């Protein structure tokens, strides 16, 4: 049996002994408190003000120390053993420390902040000192000599001058001390130390180097099941939705627990829980509270200083710098954070955890085309990221990648691109193809060369490429530009016709003088606007149907999504444009002004929406303007529905900005409409 486990067994047997056996032991009270109610078979005390809380000496004179502070890898077990052995003057080998067993050990507080020795250790030291003093007193009585003539060595008390001695085992062996811990008990003079301060070999090392040490993770209890906590995908994110449909296919999956933002999956085996943690689907809120990366240092320097602490004062630097020969060394230390707004958002789906995978990802990043935004949890997640446009690329490294690589089988690495707009991804794809030659040169020549089987090891590095890169241009594999342009035209035509038609509507009424008629009716501003809009919506829908028919018949543009999704988004887009048209007409004084305003909106829509230029290729300021335009979002919806087969969940992120735009325009329109009435 191993040392560690035997210690646990010792505690176990002691516990049993104390429960069942103490009724048989005639209680011997060394502190003179008197006979306790031994019949009640009291459990071992865990009181921190009792010597018995911390110490026990058995019939053989072996010492057990009970410590509420645990060893988190710091080695305090050895140190606490030394402290107790020293104070009691017993050999180190006769002291056993039991840690963190709440049935046996006193509550000494949390193990933290380097307090295990300076606080926890001192309590044990005082308990040992109290015991030592009491044992000396008891020995003096037993031997019939004065206490101060006695000395203790190896757990045996004897007169300094020699003569009859008495051991701890004889004095208290197997019985309780029944003594209050005395914080002022006389401590051993440090100059008499023989154990503390000596280079003692760590007690836990033999177990640790032979796999016998019990770490927290090694505990197993009967009927134990396993769990994994699902972590949020961003700081301060809240859990909005989750489902475990896919988990239910995993053998051994038990279920999930959710409490607020805490979600955990349970499995009969550890592996079932791990698999479930990957299969569970979650939606987390987005938290945007982090400081802007580009201005991080400025942000940090502006953070309010809570406490300005002067640790040491060795002079006045301002004065020193004035002296003629002052050597001035100045440096600014910042954490390096990589940032480049031009990078295309890329997700990784890595089934093979190896140095190879890491280096491939690093090499991709080094091309400057790919910015890794995170890892896809599984294929479905990767698919979603591509569909929503969250990622423009997904890099997949299959599970057996490194295994096959070292066998020299040239495994394939998959790079999927959202090639809806072939222009936007072309250069990046070209860069990917260079990767196979360059990415792993370091790995295959360094220490890892020995990982490869000997015959393949040498040719591997010099081969034309240790692996293959497969690029899937998704959604538009042949890079047909009309697939991108024709759905885009749908949005452009709608923007032009809807805004212009309505833009002229009210201005025309004002010019012709029919506005007074409208004013005379009891209709409210909102009602008038609605009345103006409904016919145009119908016209818009007819236009869309014509464009869609032509797109499919003439240009052979695929339609992968559902018409209901498409038409509903079209409806939203038409409504937004009509509202804008109405607002323009409320603001404009005549038809010419309304026309000019329409173009003022129309031109940026065409130029900055991603219709004419790849959106992510535009400078930041242009992207910001583009984001505000409904056409930008509508293009993404239409291309998504037609080419990617997107459904409701994927289009929502693009739909709400359109709705927001509409509300803003309505708000402005209503204000101006009212003011024109006045």
């Amino acid at each position: 049996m191993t040392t560690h486990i035997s210690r646990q067994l010792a505690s176990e047997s002691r516990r049993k002994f104390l429960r069942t056996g103490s009724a048989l032991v005639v209680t011997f009270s060394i502190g003179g408190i008197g006979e306790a109610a031994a019949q009640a078979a009291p459990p071992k005390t865990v009181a921190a003000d009792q010597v018995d809380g911390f110490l026990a000496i058995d019939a053989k004179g072996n010492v057990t120390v009970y410590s509420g502070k645990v060893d988190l890898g710091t080695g305090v077990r050895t140190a606490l053993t030394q402290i107790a052995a020293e104070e009691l003057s017993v050999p180190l080998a006769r002291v056993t420390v039991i840690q963190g067993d709440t049935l046996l050990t006193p509550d000494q507080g949390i193990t933290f902040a380097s307090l295990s020795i300076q606080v926890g250790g001192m309590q044990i030291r005082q308990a040992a000192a109290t015991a030592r003093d009491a044992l000396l007193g008891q020995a003096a009585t037993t031997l019939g000599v004065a206490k101060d003539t006695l000395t203790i060595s190896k757990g045996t008390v004897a007169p300094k001058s020699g003569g009859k001695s008495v051991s701890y085992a004889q004095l208290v062996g197997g019985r309780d001390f029944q003594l209050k811990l005395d914080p002022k008990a006389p401590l051993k003079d440090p100059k008499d130390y023989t154990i503390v301060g000596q280079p003692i070999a760590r007690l836990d090392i033999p177990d640790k180097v032979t796999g016998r040490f019990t770490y927290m993770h090694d505990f197993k209890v009967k009927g134990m099941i396993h769990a994994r906590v699902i972590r949020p995908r961003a700081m301060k994110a809240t859990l909005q939705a989750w489902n475990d449909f896919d988990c239910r296919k995993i053998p051994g999956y038990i279920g999930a627990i959710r409490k607020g933002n805490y979600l955990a999956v349970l499995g009969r085996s550890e592996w079932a829980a791990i698999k479930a943690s990957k299969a569970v689907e979650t939606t987390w809120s987005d938290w945007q509270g982090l400081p802007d990366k580009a201005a991080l240092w400025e942000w940090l320097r502006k953070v309010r200083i809570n406490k300005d602490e002067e640790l040491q004062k060795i002079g006045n630097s301002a004065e020193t710098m004035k002296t003629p020969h002052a050597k001035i060394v100045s440096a600014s230390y910042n954490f390096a954070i990589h940032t480049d707004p031009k990078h295309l958002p890329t997700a990784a789906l890595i089934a093979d955890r190896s140095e190879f995978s890491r280096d491939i990802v690093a090499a991709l990043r080094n091309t400057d085309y790919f910015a890794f935004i995170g890892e896809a949890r599984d294929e479905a997640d990767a698919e979603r990221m591509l569909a929503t446009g969250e990622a423009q690329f997904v890099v997949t490294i299959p599970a057996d990648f490194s295994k096959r690589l070292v066998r020299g089988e040239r495994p394939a690495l998959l790079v999927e691109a959202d090639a809806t707009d072939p222009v936007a991804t072309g250069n990046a794809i070209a860069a990917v193809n260079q990767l196979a030659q360059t990415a792993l040169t370091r790995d295959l020549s360094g220490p890892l060369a020995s990982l490869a089987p000997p015959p393949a090891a040498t040719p591997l590095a010099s081969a034309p490429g240790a692996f293959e890169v497969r690029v899937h241009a998704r959604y538009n594999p042949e890079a047909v530009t009309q697939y991108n342009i024709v759905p885009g035209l749908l949005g452009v035509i709608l923007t032009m016709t809807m805004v212009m038609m309505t833009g002229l509507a009210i201005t025309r009424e004002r010019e012709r003088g029919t506005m007074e008629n409208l004013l005379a009716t009891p209709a409210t501003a909102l009602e008038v606007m609605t009345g103006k809009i409904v016919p145009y919506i119908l016209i818009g829908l007819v236009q869309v149907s014509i464009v869609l028919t032509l797109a499919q018949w003439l240009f052979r543009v695929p339609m992968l999504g559902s018409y209901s999704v498409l038409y509903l988004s079209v409806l939203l887009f038409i409504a937004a444009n009509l509202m804008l048209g109405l607002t323009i007409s409320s603001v404009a004084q005549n038809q010419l002004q309304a026309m000019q305003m329409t173009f003022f909106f129309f031109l940026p829509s065409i130029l900055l929406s991603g219709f004419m230029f790849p959106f992510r290729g535009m400078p930041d300021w242009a992207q910001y303007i583009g984001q505000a335009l409904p056409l930008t979002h509508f293009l993404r919806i239409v291309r998504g529905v037609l080419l990617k087969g997107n459904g409701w969940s994927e289009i929502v992120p693009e739909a709400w900005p359109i709705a927001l735009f509409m509300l803003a325009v309505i708000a402005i329109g209503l204000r101006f409409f009212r003011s024109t009435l006045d």
Partner: protein
Amino acid sequence: MKLALNVNGKAASIVVDDPEMPLLYALRNDLGLHGPLFGCGLGQCGSCTVLVDGKAVRSCSVPVSSAVGRKVVTLEGLGTPAKPHPLQQAFIDEQAVQCGYCINGMIMQAAALLQTNSKPSEQQIRAALAENLCRCGTHLRIVRAVKRASEAMT
């Protein structure tokens, strides 16, 4: 699914739901061998290292099915507290352990090294252990322990 393994020189049969389950969980949970430890689960820290046919393998990243028909050796299989392997003895002698979480990987990786290079230089030891992470800071003692073991083994 029943898998027949050979671990630490003994035949062991385990029943698994999923042959893709990493070897680590079979060793720790099915066979109760706590030498290999879960560190990162990504094959990057080395605390799960075991020997498969004499080669150091990150058991968190290889499927248990890949160990069928091969000889798996864990830290327990190298030696016992009563009869430690020269590497284990050297780690004790050098007191090369703080929390000890990485030590399984350090010893197993070193065991693989000593099989192919019985007299490694300090540089070679450092290179062999470069991908094993330790955060307590016993690196220098670990290198000395491997050196000491290589000397003791000849």
